[in-house]
């Protein structure tokens, strides 16, 4: 590995200012589980590493009024996977966090790192996209930089391993909106006993592996068990994590075999996989359908009162 100077500033302002000095030869460091390998294999010359872990206020999980969530960018996978409130409300996110690497990796790896690394196989990205999450980023007051801003998660990624952030910008938090009330499709049932569910499904070669395909679903069922909202996201089958378009057309239908078949076909169509040494494009496409069906089926099971 190359030699570099290491900085651990105490404020966001210092971190961003340091980065602004030599943006092409500097990198932010969170848990380091991606950065370490990048420095060894493909990062290009890097001589400055700026650690974000000493900056106060970037870590933590809190529920916001109305049932949304705000999660600090430096929050580790281990904290996500163990958080009781999160497990009840967003099992898809906890399930995704719980399969990132093994326990030592999950004790280091952060949510912000997973998103900023911009791998299309990033496991937590898929449920967050299904939730319609947003990210807060800050340029730390560096002259010429953006002020703090909020952008939709999908606007964070430019392509594989590439984000739309300015070099000095730090991702500070992920904001997950409250689940939709499900009023859109069917006004009359909006206020009746709606139920929310979400789930994450993933396919790998062995117990410890990067996803060949992952899928997340977030849905609302109305009082009669019909879909009042549905979003499905897929990972590792495109240049970025992607949403399955057109799921609104399924609203009003019950979650049954026929619906799952349709979801499977829509996911296969949405997927834009490549062939690599892990799997062929053809197999990935087929599995995108299977994983989407699983995620939707599992998301609906607790919403319907079944156990998945």
């Amino acid at each position, binding site marked *: 590995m190359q030699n570099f100077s290491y900085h651990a500033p105490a404020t966001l302002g210092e971190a961003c200012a340091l980065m602004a000095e030599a943006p092409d030869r500097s990198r932010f460091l969170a848990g380091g589980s991606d950065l370490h390998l990048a420095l060894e294999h493909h990062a290009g010359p890097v001589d400055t590493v700026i650690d974000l872990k000493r900056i106060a206020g970037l870590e933590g999980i809190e529920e916001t009024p109305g049932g949304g969530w705000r999660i600090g960018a430096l929050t580790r996978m281990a904290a996500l996977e163990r958080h009781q409130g999160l497990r009840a409300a967003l099992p898809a996110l906890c399930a995704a966090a719980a399969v990132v690497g093994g326990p030592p990796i999950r004790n280091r790896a952060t949510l912000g790192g997973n998103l900023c690394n911009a791998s299309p196989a990033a496991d937590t990205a898929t449920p967050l996209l299904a939730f319609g999450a947003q990210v807060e980023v800050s340029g730390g007051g560096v002259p010429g930089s953006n002020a703090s801003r909020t952008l939709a998660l999908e606007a964070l990624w430019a392509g594989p391993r590439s984000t739309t952030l300015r070099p000095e910008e730090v991702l500070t938090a992920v904001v997950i909106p409250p689940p939709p009330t499900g009023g859109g499709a069917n006004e009359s049932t909006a206020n009746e006993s709606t139920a929310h569910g979400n789930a994450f499904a993933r*396919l790998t*070669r*062995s*117990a*410890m*592996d*990067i996803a060949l395909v992952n899928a997340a679903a977030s849905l609302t069922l109305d009082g009669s068990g019909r879909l009042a909202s549905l979003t499905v996201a897929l990972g590792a089958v495109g240049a970025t994590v992607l949403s399955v378009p057109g799921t609104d057309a399924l609203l009003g239908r019950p979650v049954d075999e026929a619906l799952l078949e349709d979801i499977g076909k829509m996911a296969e169509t949405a997927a834009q996989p490549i062939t690599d*040494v*892990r*799997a*062929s494009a053809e*197999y990935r496409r*087929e*599995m995108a359908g*299977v994983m989407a069906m699983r995620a939707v089926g599992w998301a609906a099971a607790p919403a319907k009162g079944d156990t998945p």
Partner: protein
Amino acid sequence: MTDSLDIVGQSVTRLELEDKVLGVTRYTADLKRPGMLYAKILRSPHPHARIVAIDTSAAEKAPGVHAVLTHHDVSSFAIEGDLLVLDARLRFVGDEVAAVAAESPAAAADALELIRVEYEPLPPVFDCGAALAPGAPELHPGGNLVDGRRLVVERGDTEGAFPTAFRVFEGVFHTAAHGPVGMETRSALAEWDDDRLTVHKTSRSLHAHDRKILSNALGIPLEHVRVICTSMGGGFGNKDEGRLGPLAAFLARKAGRPVRLEYSRMEEFIAGRNRQAMVSRLKIGVAEDGAPVAIEMRSEMNAGAHVASGRNVTRRIGQGALYLYACPNARFEGASVYTNHPAGGSFRGLGAPAGHFALEVLMDQVAAGMGLDPLEYRLRFHVGPEGQPGRRTTPPGEAIPDEPVEGGVPFSSHGLRECLLSGAERIGWRERRQPNGSATGPSRRGLGVAMGIYKGGVGREAQAEIHVDRRGRVEVRVGVVDVGQGSSTILAQIAAEALQLPLDFITMVMADTAHTPPGHITAGSSTTFSSGHAVKQAADTVRNRLRERAAATLGVSDVSLSGGVFTAQGREGAALTFHQLCAALPEPVIEQVTLTPGSTDRVINSFSAHFAEVEVEMDTGRIRILRYVAAQDAGRIVNPRLAEGQVTGAVLQFLGIALREELLMDPTSGVTLNPSFLEHKNTAIVDFPPVEVLFASQPEPLAPFGAKGLGEPPVVPVYAAVANAVANATGVWLHEAPFTPKRVLQAIAQQGADRP
């Protein structure tokens, strides 16, 4: 004496365990010397090329560089017949072009980039068919068919027998190339003292191979070469005797300083010796009752750039087809073919797992076709203790060959049936196995069985030396390497048992040519049998001599020996401790034994019967192993805990190989595409259930304390046990390994799952 054993049969703690657990054990790559240099290798970017010119002047002048080695600097000695220390002809992407020794690994790596090579690319050839076609580029003089011929082994007359068969079953079976991935990568440290050479290296054969190769390659007398293997971090029969040692030694000689060469993980995958791809065409003819009447297997192994011990690998593909079922007519034909793949070599079980995959899956298809339960089929038709039908052709008294193909030669011991019965009972075959698996719907479950037959008592020339000195130190010196399988502990137990001394009286001295008598290669599961024989015989002699001395000292005609104390027979109270006796020795007691064990009229084989229970996800093609029972016949078990570890490790290793491990090569450039742990996907321990291990009870009469070989036999049936369980679950036969989800889905799509 063997009726009541004190130490053989006990799960004593393996000798080097504490050091390994504490991280104190020193592996070759941990060794350092003052002034030591680090070596790096320049590797070929072409699958097939000739070096036209090579300019090392800039590299030689680079900071910290002390030696650069090319094919101009080495002798013309061929290491394994077809392998020069460095060669102007390059035969795979990753082949060794040149080597650099420098003061740091980084300086050596930087210097590699300064070597200018002019290559003349030659047409490559990657698959066996193309390599054997007329006009194919020849990789070695004499052509691409190794030895210029196919190996043929035959009993009876298969050609005549097939037309008489009631039914004939056929199948083609493929297994893929994969990396054996010992945790320790290959490494060698060479140092010269004047004209004497010492090499530490990862090794399985320092007397029988490394020392001779170094002596020949460097042109120095054998006595001037010392080879040591401190500790092995994963052997599996795979740490070869190729270029590693000579390259380090030539560099050290040129630089005038010690040189250590250590492979990176990527080099280990590309330039270590891999298990090569094999294909077998199998044909089984059966009588009306299902009895096999003719078995014919034709196999090809893609040997890669150099064959090394690959001939034996190919030979073992035929093992099961020739021996596992009683069958009067059997024929095996095997070809090893040179291609521009990375070089292959030996690995645990040689070709036997691939051959058994073909045989045991097709036998399940036979059983299904004949309407017989696969367990019943095997119980009826497996080879019995009497050996194959027919008459012995080797004259009596004359040693039968290592692997007699002829009939009429009985097994010395035979626990196959016991394994089948005990394994079936453990997994609950009769109660739980349903002809069509045990579930319908998206996840299906099934049970499968497969047997294995393998060499269990390879008689290699073996030597052992025992020294007992006046301080009571008992040294057992054996020249073989403990490659991690625990042979030092096993040989110590054998010595202690025969000497009738406590185990902690024994000091094992191994794997150093300066302090041990010549030893055989650690291969073919032969150490317990061959070196064990030598150790036991030496220990028997030493014990008798010590007892005679003790009796004389005590003035009685005989003494008993227990717990390190000689007690006079028939004279109350008279006793002498072992250390008292030793202190009075006029000179050390030394016994040296050389022998070649084995039999002139019996076959010594180890047997297996494995049972797998799997679950198959019909929508993803994923196979999960739910339960695995491995019943092994290895004669008497010297150390049950170590033996269970061997079997468990063997099964887990091959479950990974059966399910996912595969080295992929770009079919046009010859570049290995996944030489890393991230992409050559190995098994994680959480992927598998614990392996349930059972042992047959019968000791082997011709083996030391009755112990047969166990290192390789438990890998042999694994592919087939899994494939047969998948077939039971889904109705789909797998003929191509590894059984990746994609291949499983393809098989389901092609063959159609026979149940909803």
